[in-house]
């Protein structure tokens, strides 16, 4: 079930109403059934995979509890092997076959959300192993943790330590909280239906025929794709956080204005934050993190980013995308002293140069992100090479003036709506950056401002239903 489907518009009020109406002891059962129904609607054949992962994780943690030494580690390895093995089987088997030059004996469909819930399950296993979390004896609660519908299909990747206690708390009908959650959902719909739907028309048109598009067109397409994927995934996260908040649950933030980042490392602390934190806690730190010298630290960064790329998709393009992202981060750290000394040699230092410097750094960071993203978007390494070749060697200034914005496939009205929506997005991100939270900021404003925004968003969403909304990009991961 997609958040942007009529089905969800029916599902969500029913589930929320039931959640508030049912007595406390039934609330979790209700949410579990809702989660499974939600999953069945998206991926009917693969509910057994979700249930199987839940049972294995639950059983492994209970068996592991109380044991010490190698036995405990062996049980952990068993649990991790089961979860990661399932992920490998469904997601990477065909890719692994292609690497060794064998055609896969069967074709598998990828269960929706598998990368998310298996990472949650694996994180929980490691937390219990480390002793930072007691094993959950009640199967229902663990099942609910892994199937909590707002974050079941595309995250945020939650931690058992922050979610399990919330399933025990009393969640009452709270007008202000519900209002906050609904406004977050409204903003999520705005990002997905108003911005992504239109950007998708343009980028699909460009990249489906990248051979016929000039360097400038491809560069523009990549910049727009960066905004598309940001709004797509951050929009999904807004919807997930909003939906959870309506029912009284707090999920971890997943995005924090990534395009305001001034360096690559900062961008990756702002982008898909729950995944990056997962990799930091369960991979980067166990690999030694930054504790074993600079060279090892950089190697660890590259390993983490390569695996992060692989997490996104079973293809070399994703691996290269991950490696490039890691490389830019490493190069950023290595070049920091040189850049500092260059900066200090500039004779004038005032507020204007400070802003200019910050803008320049943000622009470079964004450009590097877009550069790597070519590998994320391209269907193959060859295609990525062709796109980059055209951008860097086929770029002519005359193309900039020759390309009319109306030739992008949107038409005047949609182009205007898109630009206006991007302006609202920029303002919202700026408010987030400066004031902390756009929704709280909006809720404090006077009624005409608030309702002005509400109606603007609703009307723009209505006008966007004509385009239709595709599935979320991160569903395929």
């Amino acid at each position, binding site marked *: 079930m997609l958040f942007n*489907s*009529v089905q969800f518009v029916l599902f969500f009020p029913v589930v929320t109403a039931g959640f508030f109406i049912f007595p406390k002891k039934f609330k979790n059962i209700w949410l579990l059934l809702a989660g499974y129904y939600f999953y069945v609607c998206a991926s009917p054949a693969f509910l057994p995979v979700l249930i199987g992962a839940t049972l294995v994780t639950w059983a492994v943690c209970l068996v592991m509890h109380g044991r010490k030494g190698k036995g405990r580690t062996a049980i952990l390895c068993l649990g991790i092997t089961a979860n990661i093995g399932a992920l490998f089987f469904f997601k990477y088997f065909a890719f692994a076959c292609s690497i060794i030059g064998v055609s896969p004996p069967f074709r598998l469909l990828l269960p929706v959300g598998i990368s998310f819930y298996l990472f949650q399950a694996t994180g929980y296993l490691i937390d219990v192993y480390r002793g930072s979390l007691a094993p959950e004896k009640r199967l229902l609660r663990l099942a609910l943790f892994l199937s909590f519908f707002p974050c079941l299909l595309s995250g945020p990747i939650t931690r058992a330590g922050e979610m399990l206690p919330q399933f025990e708390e009393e969640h009452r*009908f709270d007008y202000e909280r519900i209002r906050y959650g609904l406004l977050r959902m409204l903003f999520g719909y705005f990002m997905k239906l108003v911005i992504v739907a239109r950007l998708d028309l343009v980028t699909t048109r460009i990249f489906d025929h990248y051979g016929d598009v000039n360097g400038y067109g491809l560069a523009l397409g990549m910049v727009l794709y960066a905004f598309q994927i940001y709004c797509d995934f951050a929009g999904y996260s807004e919807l997930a956080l909003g939906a959870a908040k309506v029912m009284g649950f707090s999920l971890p933030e997943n995005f924090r204005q990534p395009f305001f980042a001034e360096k690559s490392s900062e961008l990756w602390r702002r982008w898909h934050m729950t995944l990056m934190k997962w990799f930091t806690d369960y991979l980067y730190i166990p690999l030694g993190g930054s504790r074993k010298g600079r060279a090892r630290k950089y190697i660890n960064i590259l390993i983490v980013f390569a695996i992060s790329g692989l997490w996104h998709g079973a293809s070399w393009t994703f691996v290269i995308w991950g490696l490039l992202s890691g490389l830019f981060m490493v190069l950023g750290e290595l070049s920091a002293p040189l850049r500092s000394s260059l900066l200090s040699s500039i004779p004038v230092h005032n507020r204007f140069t400070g802003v200019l410097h910050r803008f320049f750094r943000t622009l470079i960071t964004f450009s590097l992100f877009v550069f790597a993203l070519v590998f994320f978007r391209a269907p193959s390494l060859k295609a990525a090479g062709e796109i980059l070749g055209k951008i860097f060697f086929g770029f002519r200034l005359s193309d900039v003036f020759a390309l009319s914005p109306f030739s992008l496939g949107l038409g005047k009205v949609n182009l205007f709506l898109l630009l206006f929506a991007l302006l609202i997005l920029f303002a919202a991100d700026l408010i987030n950056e400066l004031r902390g939270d756009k929704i709280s900021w909006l809720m404090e404003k006077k009624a005409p401002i608030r309702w002005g925004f509400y109606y603007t968003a*609703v009307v723009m969403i*209505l006008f966007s239903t*004509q385009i239709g909304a595709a599935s979320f990009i991160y569903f395929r991961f």
Partner: protein
Amino acid sequence: MKKDFLKLLRNFILLSIPLLGAVFYAAIFPMRYHSPEYPMWAEEKSFVRTDSNDYSVLIIGDSRAKSSVLPELLGNDVYNMAIGGTTAIEMYYAFQNYLKANDPPSYAILIFAPYHFCDIDNYSQTLYYHYLSFWEEAGLTLNAFKSAKEDAILHKGWFTDSLSFRLRLPNKYMAEILDAPSGGNTDENTAVFQKIRQEKGFRSFGTDEENNLENYEVHHETFDSSELVVKYFERLLNSLEEAGTEVIIEQAPVNPFSHEHITSDFYEGFEAWLSETENRHPSCTVVHDVPVYPKNAFGDNNHLNRRGAERYTGELLEKYPEIFKGSLTSGLPQ
């Protein structure tokens, strides 16, 4: 809590005003934003639901019937109530509605493209134009559940689709509303509506002077009839027989290229199915042969142009002199 809930509800209703506006616009002004396909459905729907002077001959069928039979050549008491894109399903309900407002006709000529007994290929348009009432749609859905392999109606997301159409939600209607010219399509649609009414239900589809491309039957290897369509065709025949209407099952012409490329398996299957139908309904006159007309009789690959329609109508007139009171003054066009 109650106070907070009411406050939330009030705000939700206030926020829904633009949505309700869009829904009401879609419901109240269909002629303003729909394409010229809509007036055909609207005209037929209004025809069957109002007392229409009790026609004695009705033409019932799909687009091939609609574009093949010119009632005005057949006499004053003939009306073509076929609709393009429909199957026996819609026509069954159309006839039920006709009977509620009118006396049964003496004769009914049923013309459906053979593939329309195999495929329900246009059901979303039936929903889009609100052709069926809520209860008719509910009954059809129930029957689709009972019939095997009717995924044309029970496709993935059928319920939300159906609900979206029923409530005229923007996800289904906004595209056409926004695509309509600023002055709306009312004038054009009203003209189409009136022309169809004036020509007693006739409407041509293709605009070509000639056409010899493959029709829909060519894409079928065999005649694999749909259980649900056949069920409704049977219901339609039973209903006509119960009303005392004499039924003639006629065939619309195909172009020479299609005739050559429709498989013998398909023709044989269709022929066998017609024979079974004839056995079940001995009072019906069943024409088995599918006529082949030259390419200059076709306005597109499936439908006759006006010249073709005049010829076909003329042949019907000659074939059934006891039914039709019309006359051909200039002979049959070739």
